[in-house]
């Protein structure tokens, strides 16, 4: 394996998810590779800091609000869009600002890791407690869901802009977009329910993050279409 391949395995090495031969290969590689030793030290620091975070649920359940708006028995009145939030905001955002919101979400995730590692006082998170009972030999990793509030805010901003431009899209296009957003929301919901019983599951956390990013990407694409239609 190349050094990059070993680097890709360090997270699983730390989680204890490598097979015995793979772990032995990494053990043999580490004394010879300063870069991998440094990366492993950084990962250990992140795990230690993450253990101090509090598992704070989102301020509101996004899916419930969306489901209520798109439920068959509760079709919106003419002129009322499923994309509209219950509370309207006087703020409006330009497309560059919305694009920046999406980029900020990604930068935030990386920046929080950096701040936590450097002990920056701005990383003022409440401590969390893992709810999974694990054996004495298992390394605990708390679920990284501290970005929920920021994710919800980015989604809400995009939905507001899409609502404002809804009439500029063809009805069939709106229907297709809503259908696919629902499909992504179902995937997100399944991940969340699975995480409720298995919060430290690395695959579920990664899969949830991927699904959320998909939703943001699709919403961003939809808002761009709406803006172009004006």
């Amino acid at each position, binding site marked *: 394996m190349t050094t990059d391949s070993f680097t890709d395995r360090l997270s699983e090495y730390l989680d204890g998810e490598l*097979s015995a031969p793979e772990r032995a290969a990494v053990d043999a590689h580490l004394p010879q590779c300063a870069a991998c030793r440094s990366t492993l030290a950084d990962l250990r620091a992140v795990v230690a800091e993450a253990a101090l975070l509090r598992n704070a649920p989102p301020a509101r359940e996004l899916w419930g609000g969306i489901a209520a708006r798109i439920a068959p028995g509760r079709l919106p009145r003419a002129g009322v869009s499923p994309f509209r939030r219950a509370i309207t905001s006087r703020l409006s955002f330009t497309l560059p600002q919305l694009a920046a919101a999406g980029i900020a979400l990604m930068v935030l995730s990386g920046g929080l890791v950096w701040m936590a590692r450097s002990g920056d006082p701005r990383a003022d998170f409440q401590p969390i407690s893992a709810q999974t009972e694990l054996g004495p030999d298992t390394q605990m990793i708390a679920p990284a869901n501290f970005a929920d509030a920021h994710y919800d805010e980015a989604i809400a901003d995009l939905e507001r802009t899409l609502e404002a431009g809804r009439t500029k899209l063809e009805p069939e296009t709106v229907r297709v977009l809503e259908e*696919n957003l629902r499909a992504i929301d179902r995937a997100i919901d399944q991940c969340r329910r699975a995480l409720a019983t298995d919060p430290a599951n690395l*695959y579920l956390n990664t899969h949830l993050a991927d699904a959320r990013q998909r939703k943001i990407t699709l919403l961003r*694409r939809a808002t761009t*279409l709406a803006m172009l239609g004006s």
Partner: protein
Amino acid sequence: MMRPGIAVLLYALAAAPVQAQERPSRAPQTDQTVPVSRGMRLAIENYAGEVIIHTWDKDALRVQARHPARTRINIRTGANVVNVSTNGPAGSVDYDITAPAWMPMKIEGQFNYVTIEGAQSDVSIETVRGDIVLKGGSGSITARTIEGEIQVEGARGTINLSSVNQGIRVTGASGDVAAETTNGSITFTRMDSKTVGAATINGNVSYEGTLADNGRYTFTTHNGDIVMTVPETANATFTVRTYNGEFGSSLPLKGPERSEIKRGRRAAYTLGTGSAEVEMESFGGAIRVRRAGAARTGR
């Protein structure tokens, strides 16, 4: 007995309604050819209609279009680009364009069905509703649609394909290929690429082709199956993750017991030297690795 002349007359009268129902072929209202030189690119803006592009070895661009009477086709030649667009009331315009094979192409619009055959340079296609069919193509290839199927055949280069509500089919491609959709399946056939990525939410991912040494292949779905069909002589490390699904293989893979694959835990299986890296993740579907040419047994 009926006279021949009357028989002919009766036949003609009987045939007339049938002929009247046949839609006459529409000759193009616009047929214009402009000279182009190497280094120039083609940019087409079409709100709605069909865009068919063929290629030839001439340094000229021929634009044929069928459109409403009051619509005018604009062909503007600049230093580095030929722009093709329309003026007049909104309506469907069907293009039949013949361009040099070396010419990079960009097609944009809302409701376009696009077919390109024989391109040997960069191709960029973006539409909201409409299928995209690309035969050939070399270089940077980008195809994006919201509601439409994407079919790519025989393309080489860096290929990025994105749909939302339908599937993607890639056949005989080489180079770096990335395909994503939300509500559709992604199918790769006769592939010879070193880097392939595919992601969908509601759909299957299937791959049939070679696995290049040191290649990287990533397949992800949420509610679908992943099926790979590869030669037994391939060298690959298959990394499998599924939360509610299962894994099976008809190849002699070395790795943990299949019962150990559960709840998203990563499991790695080796074929040959394990050179290529193959990652397969499905939240709730089955993951299968099959021997090329073997009958399907479900394992």
